[in-house]
C-alpha cells in the first residue's frame, strides 16, 4: 500500500492534520504521554461498553500516528483492544517506529491505549 516513504509520511501528515482536536480540558499534563520527543495527549472514555479515544500532539507526524491508532482501536471493546493483533503495524510500514528506542513514542502511545483499555475493562 505504501511503497515510498514519501507517500507514507505524506499520508501520516494528512492524517495528522485531519485528527479531530482533543477537548481542551484534556490537553493538560494529566493526559500527557511520557516518552515522546513531541507532546502527545491521549484521552479515553467508555460508551456503551466501547472505548473512544481522542488525542492531540504538537508534532503533526506524531498526531498522524496516534490518529491512525485511534482509527484502529476506537469503538472497540476493552477486551478486543487488549487482544489486538499488532502485526498490522508491520504491514503498513510502521515497524521501524516500534523499537522502544525510537523517540516518536509509538510504543508509549500503544502502551497508554492498552492501559486505558485495562482500566476500562470492568
Amino acid at each position: 500500500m505504501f511503497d515510498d516513504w514519501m507517500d507514507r509520511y505524506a499520508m501520516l501528515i494528512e492524517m495528522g492534520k485531519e485528527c479531530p482536536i482533543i477537548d481542551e480540558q484534556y490537553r493538560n499534563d494529566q493526559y500527557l504521554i511520557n516518552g515522546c520527543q513531541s507532546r502527545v495527549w491521549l484521552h479515553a472514555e467508555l460508551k456503551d461498553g466501547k472505548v473512544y479515544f481522542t488525542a492531540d500532539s504538537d508534532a503533526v507526524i506524531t498526531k498522524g500516528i496516534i490518529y491512525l491508532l485511534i482509527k484502529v482501536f476506537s469503538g472497540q471493546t476493552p477486551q478486543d483492544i487488549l487482544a489486538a493483533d499488532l502485526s498490522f503495524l508491520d504491514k503498513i510500514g510502521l515497524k521501524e517506529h516500534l523499537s522502544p528506542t525510537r523517540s516518536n513514542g509509538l510504543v508509549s502511545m500503544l502502551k497508554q491505549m492498552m492501559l486505558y483499555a485495562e482500566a476500562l475493562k470492568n
Partner: protein
Amino acid sequence: MDINEIRKQFPVLDQQVYGKPLVYLDNAATTQKPLCVIERERDYYLHENCNIHRGVHYLSQMATEAYEHARQTVARFINAKETHEIVFTRGTTESLNLLATSLGTENGKRKTESLPFSVFRFPFSVLITAMEHHSNLVPWQQMVQRCGGQLLVAPMDDNGVLDLQAYEDLLKQGPQIVAMAHVSNTLGTVNPVKEMIRMAHQYGAITVVDGAQSIAHLPIDVQDLDCDFFVFSGHKMYAPMGIGCLYGKTEWLEKMSPYQFGGEMVDTVSFERTTFNKLPFKFEAGTPNVGAALGLETAIQFLENLDRKAVEEHETLLVKTAVEKLSAIEGMRFIGQAPERSGLVSFIIDGIHPYDLGTIIDKMGVAVRTGHHCAEPVMTRFGIPGTVRASFALYNTLEEVDVLVKAVTRAANMLR
C-alpha cells in the same frame, strides 16, 4: 586543505542511509573518528593492552608510558603549565561532576556546616549562564542544594548573547564558583570567556570553562584564558568515546578531595586510614580507559597536522553558507544569532515541529539533532519546544550544506 582527502580518513561518512548518501550534521553530539584514531585504539588492544601504573613487567611499563605520554600531549594541546594538571575522566559530564563534588569538600573532610571548600564563605552560590547544557547546570544545582546555597544565572538577550552587565551585577553577589560554556551547544554562541574569567577573578570567584563545544573548533590556551578549570570530551574532537579531561590549576587540585576512591588513587592503605596519591592520580580511581586516552592523543595529533586556521575558516564558511541559504525558507527563525558563532546553526520554522522536520530530512539521509539538546532552560527562554540543529565538523562540505537546505525546503513544503 583538501576536504576530499580528509573525508577518506572517515570511513563512516562513506555510506548510504535509506538509499541516500549520508550527510552527517550532528557533530555537536559526537564527531566521527578518523582511521588513525580507530587504528591507534585497535593497535593498543592488539599489541599493548595492559593495566598501568602497577606492573613491573614490560607490557605494563610500555602501556604506562604511552598513557602518560598521552597526558603530556593533552597538556601541550591546551597549554597547561604542568602535565599533572590534566586529569583523565570519561568526559565533560564526569569532569563537571568531579568538580561539583570535590569542590564541596577539602582534603577528605566534609565541612560540618556544609560549607564547601575552606576558601568559601556563606552565603554560598554558583553562577552559571542561561545557555548552559544540562551537564554544566545540574551538577552545580545539586551542589548548591546540598550546601544550602544558591544558583545564580546570568541572562542572555534574544540573539543568544550573554548580558555582560547582568553578569557583572551577579558577580557582585559574591558567587564562589562561576561555570560557563565556552560555546553554547544549542545557540553556537562563543562566549567572551577570557573577559568573563578576568571579571570573575576580580570578584574572587573560581572559574570553570565548559569546553565541550569549543575544543574541536577553537584553539585553547588555558594559561592565556587564566581559567581555574577547563573541561572537555574526547568524542567531540574526533577521539573515542569514554575519554575526556579535567584541567585544573595545581593550587586547586592540591586542595580538593578525591572524587572517587579505590585503587590507583591511593598512597598507603590500612584498615584505619588511607593517604592519597599525588596529582593527577588522586583523581583517577580504578583502571582508566587507556586505549581511549591513546586514541585522544592521536586525535590531537590529527588536528595538529592540519592547518587549524584553515579548518576554522572552513567551518565558519559552512555555518555562514547554511544560514544564508536557509534564510530563504519561508518562516525560518534562527535560534541564536550572536555575532561570535561557532560550529552550528539552530533553527525552527513557523508552524512546524522540529521533530517532524528532523524525521522527514532523516529519510533524505540528513542526520541532524532535533529537540531540546539537553538544554531545556534555553528552549524555555525562547519559548519553543526544541530546535533543529545542524552542527558541522571539518569534514563537512558546501555540497552537504546544499543537501541540507534542499531537504529542509522539501520537508517544510510537505509539512505545511
